[in-house]
Every structure is written in C-alpha cells, then in structure tokens.
C-alpha cells in the first residue's frame, strides 16, 4: 500500500467498495439494514421498523427478519473481507474491484439460526466472523444483539460458496 496516499483517497475507496456491495441489493434496503465501518471491521445495523414485527403481542421482530439480517451480515462480511484484502494489496477504485468480481455476493449453502431470546422493538446489531475462507467454501459465524453486546438475541453459523474471481486469484 502506498503510505503517502491521502487519507481521503483511501477512505473514499473503502467506503465506495462497501457501498457498492450493499446499496444494490433491494432486500437489504427493504429490511432497513446498513453497515457501519471502522477500518476493516463491519457492524451490521437493522433499524427497527413496524414492518419487521412478527409477534405484535410482545412486540417482537419476526424470526424470518432476524434470520435475513444475520444472513446478510454474513454475506457482506465475506465479500467485504475479500475486497478489502484485494484493495490493500494494490489500491484500486470501486469500479476496478467490481470488475474483478469482488463485489459479487457469495451463495449460501446452508444457514442455521439459533434464537436465544425475542428480538424486541429496538435496533439490532450484528458482527460476523469468518472462521474459514477457502477458494470455494467459507464458514461464517454471526452474533446479533440489541441494547447489550453481551446479551445475544440470536446467533448463526453458515456455509457459503465463494464467487469465482475474473483474475483467477
């Protein structure tokens, strides 16, 4: 990486790549999911809205919305890590990264969600950990919480098929 490169240029490249990953997916927009980036670390945020409710009595967020949130967090984290590494190796703008196929999302093979407590009428946060990422397959764990980071309301593990890159890397 070019150490003399201006901070603004670096930030623009990173934010551009992340935005390109997230902004084009309609379902991410529908659920109100966004990503907060601190360096290479991503935190997924699903802003509470009434349409997410699956249990009006509590009220609680629908398990399907929770599962979708966790799966999205896992998919974006996987694609983001690969794009990040590519950008760190040789600085390139979002268009170049996209052309090489880094911004294509992996495909979910399986996904297991563990519902620990109801998701309340609050914003949700999630962070994904890539436990293994090979050329073809990846294994990811995701944790989601609301007000208290130590009190997870759901966690999930999934396996994913990585999209092939145009560079062959």
């Amino acid at each position, binding site marked *: 990486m070019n150490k003399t490169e201006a901070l603004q240029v670096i930030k623009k490249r990173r934010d551009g790549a992340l935005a390109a990953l997230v902004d084009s997916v309609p379902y991410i927009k529908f659920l109100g999911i966004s990503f907060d980036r601190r360096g290479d670390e991503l935190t997924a945020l699903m802003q509470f809205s009434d349409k997410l409710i699956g249990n009006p009595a509590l009220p609680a967020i629908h*398990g399907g919305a929770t599962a979708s949130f966790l799966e999205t967090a896992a998919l974006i984290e996987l694609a983001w890590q690969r794009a990040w590494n590519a950008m760190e190796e040789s600085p390139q703008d979002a268009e170049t990264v996209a052309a090489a196929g880094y911004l294509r999302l992996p495909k979910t093979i399986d996904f297991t969600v563990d519902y620990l407590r109801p998701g309340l009428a609050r914003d949700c946060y999630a962070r994904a950990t890539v436990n293994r990422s090979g050329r073809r397959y990846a294994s990811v764990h995701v944790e989601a919480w609301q007000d208290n980071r130590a009190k997870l309301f759901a966690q999930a593990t999934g396996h994913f098929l990585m999209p092939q890159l145009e560079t062959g890397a």
Partner: protein
Amino acid sequence: MTEEELRQRVAIAKQFMAALPFCQAVDMQIDQAGVSEATMSMPYNPMIVGDPETGVVHGGAVSALMDTCCGFAVNLHPDCAKPTATIDLRIDYMRPAKPGERIIAKAEVYKATRTVAFVRAIAHDGDAEHPVATATGAFVFSKIKSAEVAS
C-alpha cells in the same frame, strides 16, 4: 382433532397471520392447512431480491416464509396448547428460486414431545420434486395436559 377444531384453528391462524406486519409486508398467504402440516406461499416481488444481477430472491426471504410455515404447522398439532417460537432453524439452499415465480413452502411436524416440536419443510417454485430449499427446526411446544383434553 375434529374437522371443526381444525377449521377453528385455521381461522384463528389466518387472522393471526393477517395481523403480523412482517408477513403482510412480504404478502405471505396460507394455501392449505391440515393436522400438523401447512402450506404457505409468497409472490415474487422486486423488493425481496437478493441478487440484482439475476433478480433471484434473497435466501433470507425464503427462510422467513419457511419459518412462518413451520410455526403454523406447530400450531396445527392436535396437542399444541400455546403459541410457539423458533428455537433453531437450519436452511439448506439447493438452488436459486426462479425470478418471477411464487415461492411455496410446505411444513410438517414429524415429532412433538412435551416441550419441543421437530419440524421439517421444503420450499419450491412450482415443482415440489425440485426444492429451492429445505429446512429442519426445533420449536417451543407446550403439550395440552391429558386432563384438559378430557374436559
């Protein structure tokens, strides 16, 4: 469970479903309901697309339909006493759903203990022999006490 009891439960479940904002937002509907089993479906909608290049629906949306359908099947178990909740759900994605097609989920409770209902489901886009995804899950279950059944 008598025919009348089943009809009542389905009516209650339909009302309940209509009151669930998330199910409404993605336009889920109940197609068929029987003892310990249910079929539900959801139309294709551009807003639930997960891959803008191909127009394929996001896996999470398919998962949401299967989760709802599994929960509904638990509700239709003859010994089900209280509303259920998902303990865990595993989804296996076999292939992408065809863009433009309705997604249909079919779920059945294959075992219910005093506290847990074990459920499996498949999702397809027209041909049940070629599933888009399958699911297995464990759901909270409270069995009607035999005294209640007798009364």
